[in-house]
């Protein structure tokens, strides 16, 4: 759309052709104010008129944590290896919440923002990006809570510090989890705009997905013969890398990591292509 034709000095041109590859990066940058504003709006809307405000970002995982420990650890007795269950579940919950909340919110982009999209133009990718960014901030807050608790464990129980050089890979693993959330979210956003019944598929899918991702169990407890199948999930090695970086325990191979990286990039490029090819045409469909 932003093509400058050579013959004349037109600034922009609008026609029926949409491109797979024109991701309008420059335009996104021009709308960075809106991006920041939308992140702010996300937090204001979620915590305005609540008693505890942004503290909910921390209470939510803590409440989930208590439930998971009671059910999965005490009742069912899933081993968390040498990692204290509190720490084990907390990182799992934080990462999973990050992925699933990003995915769900992004997949509703067109449904929730339809009215605004019909009235004003801005690069539509701003919405998914601001959703993802807000969830990154939540994740960072939860990770700082995790750090505090880890320090607490070290002080109280003399828990050995198992952090290691894989810490350097932690931001990359988190980034890749985020990219997975964005990509799958974008795919479903385009698909659900066409077929609303896919919103049900998305919400059931994400619930089932949690059980094939090492959130409540370590890959180590998965029987050998299922491990190859479980490794098909590109999120699995990423979750394991995060646990390994923090607690020195996790099961992954370089091949799995390479596979995960490859699938993530493939998903990202594919979803971005589909999104940009379809986004303007969707305005006539939603």
């Amino acid at each position, binding site marked *: *759309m932003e093509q400058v034709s050579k013959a004349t000095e*037109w600034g922009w041109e*609008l026609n*029926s052709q949409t491109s797979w590859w024109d991701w309008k990066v420059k335009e996104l940058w021009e709308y960075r104010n809106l991006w920041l504003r939308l992140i702010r709006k996300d937090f204001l809307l979620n915590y*305005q008129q609540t008693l505890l405000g942004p503290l909910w970002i921390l209470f939510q995982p803590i409440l989930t944590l208590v439930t998971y420990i009671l059910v999965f650890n005490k009742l069912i007795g899933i081993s968390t290896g040498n990692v204290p269950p509190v720490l084990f579940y907390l990182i799992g919950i934080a990462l999973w919440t990050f992925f699933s909340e990003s995915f769900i919110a992004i997949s509703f982009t067109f449904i929730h923002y339809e009215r605004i999209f*019909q009235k*004003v133009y801005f690069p539509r990718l701003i919405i998914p990006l601001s959703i993802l960014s807000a969830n990154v901030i939540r994740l960072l807050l939860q990770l700082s809570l995790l750090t505090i608790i880890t320090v607490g464990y070290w002080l109280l129980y003399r828990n050995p510090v198992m952090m290691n050089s894989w810490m350097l890979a932690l931001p990359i693993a988190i980034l890749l989890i985020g990219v997975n959330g964005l990509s799958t979210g974008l795919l479903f956003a385009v698909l659900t705009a066409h077929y609303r019944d896919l919103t049900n598929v998305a919400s059931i899918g994400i619930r089932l997905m949690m059980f094939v991702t090492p959130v409540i169990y370590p890959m180590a407890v998965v029987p050998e013969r299922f491990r190859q199948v479980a490794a098909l999930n590109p999120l699995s090695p990423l979750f394991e890398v995060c646990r390994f970086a923090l607690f020195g325990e996790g099961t992954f191979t370089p091949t799995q990591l390479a596979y995960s990286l490859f699938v993530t990039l493939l998903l990202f490029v594919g979803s971005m292509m589909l999104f940009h090819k379809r986004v303007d*045409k969707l305005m006539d469909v939603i």
Partner: protein
Amino acid sequence: MSETIIQIENVSKYYRLGTIGTGSFRQDLQRWWTTRVRRREDSFFGDNTPLPSSSAILALDDVSFDIRQGEVWGLVGANGAGKSTLLKIISRITRPSQGVIRGKGTISSLLEVGTGFHMELTGRENIYISGNMLGMSKADIQHKFDEIVAFSGIERFIDTPAKRYSSGMYMRLAFAVAAHLEPDILIVDEVLAVGDASFQKKCLGKMQEVAQDKGRTILFVSHNMQAVNNLCQKSVWLEHGRVRELGETRTVVTNFLATYQQNTLQKTWDTPENAPGNQQVRFRSIELIPESDDPQRLINVTTPLRVSFSIWNFEPETWINASLQLYTNLGECVFELPTASLYCAKGVLEGACTIPGHFLNDGVYYLSIRILKDASSVLFDFQQCLSFEVEDYRENTAWFGKWPGVIRPTFPFAWRQVATETAHSL
């Protein structure tokens, strides 16, 4: 001559009829089968010259025109003529199905009042988020923030959530943001149709100011022809998605109104058999003639209207008179005007009168004519035999709100100063 800033070239837009976006998976499969497998032309989604089929409507059909910098264009047309679709395409919300639009400079589109506003957020937050969405930078908004708040007149409530605002306050704040946009090209759709008269006045005043003082290019859609006439130099008249006429606003709007006025100005019946009436009287003709020099015979508030009619009288030797009643479209009677009684024989009778100009207000009116015997018993009441619409007409005014009242007479109204205040008098 200033340079062309928007060039619209052979733009068409198709919409698929029926189940748009309701998960028509079967249709999509069918389309995939015809286009990808059998290599046929796509009827709707294809990128390459889609052809309108029975399942698609043509919202815009080969529209072309150029807009030069600093021009204010009006877009007129009946409902469903494609005005909003065209604005949506120029605003980049949707793509044309065919054709191309080229342009330069930034565009802001006001297709509604309060784009991006959220009820839960405070006025301050809403100014920022709406401003950003409409294309203002943070620095722009900070720079104009006080001005925006002052324009909206809700200083005291700026940190209150918008949900506690009255609808008037909400509207004022939303418009205040819009009024401070400074794009190269401004696109405005019917946003002025909302709000009360004083709000509309403020909006139009601001529009006029922006258009005149700052040399901005504006594309404006409104059903208020008075506003279009006063604000826009050029106009496009769209009809069924096509450009019907394009040029100077005054000409375009006049022609548009002449076509769309709901006027039934003439009825004639050749024989008494099919004419309205009964055994006693039947109508032969009835006609309303706008007495203006205008060849379009457009009726506005200044136009005198000559009503003439003729009847067949079948009553032998009796006193007959006619009475003309004028109703507003809400059914209120504006006046009843009887003729004198005439002692007449069987044959044709004729009546005529002139409703003066500068008498009726703008709006739709109906005429009824009654024929009476002995000035008391009704022989025939021909209800709503003619209807006509009177257009507003004002010159050199900044106020475009609806003129109140059933009639708008102009009779002498004395107004003078009887004393002046000096140092010692009073």
